[in-house]
């Protein structure tokens, strides 16, 4: 293991001060960072351990929107009744990550900052148009999650900045949301493809708004806006879901790698998008106005 100086701030001001030093890296749950430090993919000279700061571990209901502190663990999200009711896709995604050991340590902020194209928490946040509150010694800014993600492992975080919290607006009236993941097995799987879909239905039961996000099919998790546009105003049925699945293939550029191939990913993306839409519509239809 490489050598570093270790800081353990006990407050947000102290954390900002520590992170402003050159060579500093923030340690959240450690489930991604520690193996990467062992392989020298990350080489901090200062490691800033956040385990002494409880302020970033929360799930808050602010009526119009829900705010999640960046150090909230996947297990806390998976077990939160609030998250299950406002963003069931995120609840399912958090529950599908790694195993209980990783979920109890890994954090939402860590999953976002790590910016894996296969990150499971990203698609359910993208379909809710989530934004991030980013802080540093200099101040703070808010940025949509979609513009925060720049490439595999690349984000818009500048030196000294950290994710304070993630917020997303509630969906209203007749809505439904679903997350589906394809992995090599059920436990401990990194997604070969993952998808989240949300739909809003109008009074006649037509789709008034559809949102689709797909992961592990390009350098970042993406929203499939052309397919979303196709769905708008449609009467939801099997043929529409199948057509959306076909259209989504045109919007993605998956690669072949250790986990899967281009063909398999195109096919799976198509299937999971159809299924996620169907499940989201069924959830929306169960909500009586």
């Amino acid at each position: 293991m490489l050598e570093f100086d270790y800081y353990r701030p006990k407050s947000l001001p102290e954390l900002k001060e520590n992170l402003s030093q050159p060579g500093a890296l923030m340690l959240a749950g450690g489930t991604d960072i520690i193996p990467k430090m062992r392989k020298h993919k990350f080489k901090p000279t200062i490691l800033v351990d956040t385990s002494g700061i409880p302020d970033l571990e929360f799930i808050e209901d602010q009526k119009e929107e829900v705010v999640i502190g960046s150090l909230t663990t996947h297990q806390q999200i998976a077990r939160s009744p609030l998250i299950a009711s406002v963003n069931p896709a995120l609840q399912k995604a958090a529950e599908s990550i790694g195993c209980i050991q990783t979920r109890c340590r890994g954090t939402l902020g860590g999953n976002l900052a790590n910016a894996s194209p296969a990150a499971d928490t990203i698609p359910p946040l993208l379909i809710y148009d989530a934004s991030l509150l980013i802080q540093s010694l200099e101040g703070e800014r808010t940025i949509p999650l979609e513009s925060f993600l720049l490439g595999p492992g690349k984000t818009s975080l500048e030196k000294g900045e950290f994710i304070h919290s993630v917020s997303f607006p509630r969906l209203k009236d007749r809505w439904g949301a679903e997350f589906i993941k394809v992995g090599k097995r059920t436990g401990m799987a990194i997604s070969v493809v993952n998808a989240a879909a949300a739909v809003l239905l109008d009074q006649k039961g037509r789709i008034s708004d559809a949102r689709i996000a797909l992961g592990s099919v390009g350098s970042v998790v993406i929203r499939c806006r052309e397919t979303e546009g196709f769905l708008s105003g449609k009467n939801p049925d099997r043929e529409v879901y199948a057509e959306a699945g076909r259209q989504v293939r045109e919007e993605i550029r998956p690669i072949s790698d250790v986990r899967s191939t281009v063909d398999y990913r195109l096919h799976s993306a198509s299937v999971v998008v159809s299924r996620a839409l169907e499940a989201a519509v069924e959830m929306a239809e169960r909500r009586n106005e």
Partner: protein
Amino acid sequence: MKNIEVEFTLNGKKTSLSSAPNLTLLDVLRDELGLTGVKDSCGGEGECGACTVIINGKPVNSCLVFIGQVEGLQVTTIEGITPEDGYHPIQRAFVEAGAVQCGYCTPGAILATKALLDSNPEPSDRQIREGLSGNLCRCTGYTKMLDAVHRVIDEGQDD
């Protein structure tokens, strides 16, 4: 690289130590404190669960925790649940169900079982599989492990 001072509760006892900050909890438990029940199998990737310990009631891979991160926390290892004489009921159930083959994954699997049953005394089959999905067994004795967990559910964790 300066040493750090860490205070935590280990198997019920207050423990203070001075350590290099780049050691993991797994390194310290095995090499500094002699608690060799905790195993390193995948080499610090968090893939295998052999190094599972319980921290504040939750199962955690100790290879993915730097020693400074346990400041103020309660850590339980397999040694901490083993009585002076005999076995913990989960240990006995593993032995009786034949869920122990080479034994390398066993301490981790037993602690994952304990954390599961402490939070959910009557898990479904699916919940048991999920609770143990982070613990690899290369002798592939998974079915026997499920049998062992069912024995504990039927007979209880108390002696």
